[in-house]
């Protein structure tokens, strides 16, 4: 699974890294960045939680 964040959409709600800090991190602005696009199987559920709680639909996961 791959996870991506669209930096033009992210405005720093911070829901992703609050709910799934294993997958999503915050930069100084409080916007999301993803250290690695490839999500190991044990974190796939976490990546989905981030995606499902982003009010800006900035996060996409691809199988």
């Amino acid at each position, binding site marked *: 699974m791959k996870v991506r964040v669209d930096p033009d959409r992210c*405005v720093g*709600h911070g829901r992703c890294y609050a709910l799934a800090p294993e997958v999503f991190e915050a930069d100084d602005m409080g916007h999301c960045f993803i250290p690695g696009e490839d999500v190991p199987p044990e974190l796939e559920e976490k990546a989905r939680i981030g995606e499902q709680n982003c*009010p800006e639909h900035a996060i996409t996961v691809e199988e």
Partner: protein
Amino acid sequence: MDAVSDTPDTPDTPEMPESQFVLDDKTASEPQPIYRMLRENSPILRTDEGGTVISRHEDVEFALRHSELFSSDMDAISIGNVRPLIPLQINPPEHVKYRRLLDPLFAPKQVALLENDVRKLSNQLIDDFIDSGECEFNGSFAIPLPCTVFLRLLGLPLEDLDLFLEFKNNIIRPPAKDQAEFERIQAETGQRIYAYFDKVLDERERQPRDDLMSGFLEAEVDGHRLTREDILDICYLFLLAGLDTVTASVGCMVSYLASHPEQRQRLVDDPALVPGAVEELLRWETPVPGVPRVLTDGVELSGEELQSGERVTVLLGSANIDEHEFPEPDNVDFERPANRHLAFGGGVHRCLGSHLARLELRVALETLHERIPDYTIKRGEEPQYSMGIRAVEYLPLVFTPPARTS
């Protein structure tokens, strides 16, 4: 439901700015049925008193995402200010310059440093009323918590609390008989707000301190220092955005939990549910029910044409219970798996203070549930809500006081 259509015509209702006309103080305690009715019957509701209310999730999301079309500049709302408030009333692309400066100050990492202070303060406020077994929650907790946090953050004297409450009440709920007086009080208060911060900035220029006001004097945007007016325009917005909203949010949440003991008990039994509860109650209660915008061009929403220059209330509260986005929207589920609520708005103007608000709300619920876990509404009494921002202006609680140990 007649409430919505009747409200604007009630003869004794003074004219209010557009954010306040759909819902009044009587419906503010339970606006959700009105939101539903609006979405189903009048998703684009034009009202006489100055605004078009949009209520479907799809339309609300579109408006928030298109800030160039749905502008929040000075034409959208007047709140006593003479220049655009920074950053809310600055349109892109200028807007992002200010957010680059301000967002890091209010990012989760930064506000986390305040947690111990907020917890201590929360406990101190509870200390003051816990032995009596009752309190009027708004005055004894919901107001002083965020206001004290705000004053400390900016580095302002705590004795000025009453002055700040007067400032923000005069702007948000001016004690006015008619529109002219409403605007006069706002304008006069606005001048007093500018003058207050101007004086503090003079002091900080002479003697800098480790506070936000001093920080603004040093801050740069695109290699230029902020002007004095820039800083005043930031502080003005902070005062209006930072005080009332958290007061209203903690009031709405505690009022809900006091009237839903089984839900309250779940949080008492499992405090790990509190962060999810904060999000879900932000969705369900949406303490800031709508945000004002003005159209810069024509647009079609839900099959209706809206014109350039039209003022719009973007009804966040309604979007947050729209079944097209939230399955079983009326079910308040602290473990809702997907919660893309818009209680803090969205798009480029996403609430700057949202992370500080979340921290205050979480810590407030944690400390209350630890200290007075069985709070309920006092028998024979009812909470009183006001509209605009949904403050619970009167919230009488009773609870078991701690056993006295000598």
